[in-house]
């Protein structure tokens, strides 16, 4: 008995130390991966090839992607695209390890703010030639989207769509409260909340402490005129006046009684679907989910609480992995796939997203719920292409925004500690990534 428990104790205790090592077993890329991406003529006429295609479209966007993939497969006899859909949070943990092991995606979709990270990690390859061959040019996109795909003077992603934070509102509640137009600025937003309260909706706007609270915070920072990472993306500016004002405003929604305190993960959205609140800010990727719920909802751009219209946005980009680059056929087929997808990006609007290409955007979103958001594409703000930024935000920013919203301590204090932690992490990242 004793012996058994001793071994068990030791093994279990030690296992904790080893959780990591099991996952850290891959050998480094050695920095010598061939980055010659070859030339592209839009065709693939090699032998039959199978492409592993990874993405994170687990929501209402998934079926639309599947439909596009099916269509692509039926139009191409010698290419079979095999999709693998993984939640985004897991996606970014798995892709680096899987690509290193040669078991990952050949081609895939990732967020714009992750491209730099994966480029620096040598997981994805430059696609400048592909962009040129498809005829993608800066003037078919907004400057922000176009530039954000570039890391160290090379383009790593082919934009598929943009998606942003938006304001959803319950039309029935608005009607009952006598609100005719969705609010657009701080004053009309407050008016709307007061009217809703007067109409019996006690807590019309729930302020989440966790996701997407930090996206609201970033949007408000931009509105207050301060990019969260400065102009050059080198320094976290959460604790600037703009940032403090943003978090104070978020907290004021609770203090003023528009939001109940202690809103837990996802409950502001569940409550919105239940009709327990009247307004919620969330991503436009929720459109299909809300459509399916049968709720009489409206969608509008995030109102301008600060000085200038601005709101957080992100973008899905296609990438090709270093794994595919080792096989000429796979590389070429991947390019054909991306080129085809880019041409068909108009159909992707059905997923609730907004096509990134200007040439297809207006027609694609006509009559769609997201049309009103697409019209504001110039006001969308994207995070800068800084490697490792996603991890920095999760570690430094999100917990402190949560503390601010929960009323634990002073927002200025919380943001100061967030910024100093973020800067430490960014410094560490710069050392690791070598720039």
């Amino acid at each position, binding site marked *: *008995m004793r012996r058994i428990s001793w071994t068990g*104790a030791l093994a279990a205790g030690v296992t904790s130390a080893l959780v*990591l090592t099991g996952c850290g077993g891959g050998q480094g890329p050695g920095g010598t991966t061939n980055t010659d991406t070859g030339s592209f003529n839009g065709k693939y006429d090699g032998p039959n090839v199978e492409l592993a295609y990874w993405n994170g479209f687990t929501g209402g966007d998934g079926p639309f992607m599947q439909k596009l993939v099916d269509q692509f497969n039926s139009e191409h006899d010698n290419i079979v695209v095999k999709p693998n859909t993984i939640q985004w949070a897991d996606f970014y943990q798995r892709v680096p390890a899987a690509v290193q092991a040669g078991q990952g995606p050949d081609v895939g979709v990732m967020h714009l703010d992750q491209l730099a990270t994966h480029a620096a990690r040598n997981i994805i390859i430059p696609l400048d030639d592909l962009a040129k061959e498809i005829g993608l040019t800066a003037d078919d996109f907004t400057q922000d989207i176009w530039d954000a795909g570039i890391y160290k003077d090379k383009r790593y992603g082919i934009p598929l769509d943009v998606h942003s934070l938006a304001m959803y509102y319950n039309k029935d509640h608005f009607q009952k409260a006598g609100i005719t137009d969705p609010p657009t600025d701080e004053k009309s937003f407050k008016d709307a909340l007061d009217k809703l309260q007067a109409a019996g909706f006690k807590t019309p706007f729930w302020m989440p*402490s966790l996701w997407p609270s930090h996206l609201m915070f970033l949007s408000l920072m931009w509105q207050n005129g301060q990019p969260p990472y400065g102009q050059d993306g080198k320094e976290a500016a959460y604790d600037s006046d703009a940032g403090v004002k943003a978090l104070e405003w978020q907290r004021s929604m609770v203090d003023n009684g528009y939001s109940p305190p*202690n809103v837990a993960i996802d409950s502001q959205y569940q409550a919105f679907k239940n009709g327990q609140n009247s307004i919620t800010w969330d991503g436009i990727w929720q459109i299909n989910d809300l459509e399916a719920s049968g709720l009489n909802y409206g969608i509008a751009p995030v109102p301008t609480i600060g000085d200038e219209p601005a709101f957080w946005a992100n973008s899905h980009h296609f990438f090709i992995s270093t794994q595919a680059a080792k096989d000429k056929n796979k590389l070429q087929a991947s390019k054909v796939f991306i080129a085809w997808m880019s041409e068909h990006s108009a159909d992707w609007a059905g997923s609730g997203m907004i096509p990134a290409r200007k040439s297809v955007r207006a027609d694609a979103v006509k009559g769609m719920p997201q049309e009103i958001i697409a019209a504001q594409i110039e006001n969308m703000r994207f995070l800068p292409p800084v490697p490792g930024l996603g991890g920095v935000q999760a570690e430094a920013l999100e917990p402190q925004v949560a503390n601010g919203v*929960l009323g634990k301590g002073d927002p200025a204090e919380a943001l100061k500690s967030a910024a100093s932690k973020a800067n430490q992490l960014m410094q560490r990242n710069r050392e690791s990534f070598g720039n």
Partner: protein
Amino acid sequence: MASTVTAPRSDTVSDDRRGGAPRRRDINSVGFAPWLFLAPYLVLFVAFVLGPIVYGLYISLHRYDFTLPNKPFVGLENYTDLFTPGSITYSSFWQAMRATGIFTVFSVPLLLVVPLVIALTMNKKFPGRNLFRAVFFAPYVLGVAVIAILWRYLLDSNIGLVNYYLGLLGLPDSTAWTTSTPAAWFALVGVTVWWTLGFNAVIYLAGLQDIPKELYEAAEMDGASRWQQFRHVTLPGLMPVLSFVTMTTIIASANMFGQSYLITKGAPGTETRTAIYQIAETGLRNYQMGSAAAMSYVLTLFLILLSLLVFWLFRDRDTPKKQKAEAPLQAAPMMLRQGRG
């Protein structure tokens, strides 16, 4: 000549001993066979325990990001960082250790006592006993993801059923079970106790069934009360099981991750982010595997010290003096007899 003499002699020697008690030659073959039997486990042990321990130490001495070509050697930097206030990992690590400590301190006593009470009850004869045994064990069968998602919605402060029913009963109905402390600790400990008590209860039950009935009969003859029977027959009989249960429960609690990862997401802020959670975030999300490995070793050290303490507390104090013969009887491997009725 000499060789022809020695060869048959050695043959006769072994012939003589064939069939008798094992002697020299058999000892040689014995030296090989056990290894063969051990081999499957040994291979796994080396590959998944010993190898990673050494590799983990190596990682902890580097700035290790497995996706990057250069993983510079930094000596003990990852360790000294953990003990230097203001460093990149200091505050988050110790806050996480504190969270793990709080969780362990509150969950372990409950997980030792509640399952014991249940096991004592389940050891009685009453109709539907097997059903109740199954009911108490059932939650343990579920995965952490299932119980976490279930409780995340039940415990939601604004739209959850727990607060709703508390409100119907006229109790406070706005407790933030998942976004404020100490309520979040109540929630996490409560959920964990509900989830895992079945396992400890089963082990206790096996232990209880291993205590000879004669001891109770003798105690009763001597006029021992219920409490005295429990104190002087049941508890000593359970001692070996108790030390096992204590140890595994402490280690399981100290390794808590899934509940806070899925139910509270570490909220409020990072207050319920446990050590393993922090290690996973550092190593697997931020790719600072060197720091994360160092954290793992510090946590392991704590657990080893704690385990030694528990062993010391549960050591057989009486054994050297008396009842040396009785102790092995009590310590019989009751785990193996679990299947019995």
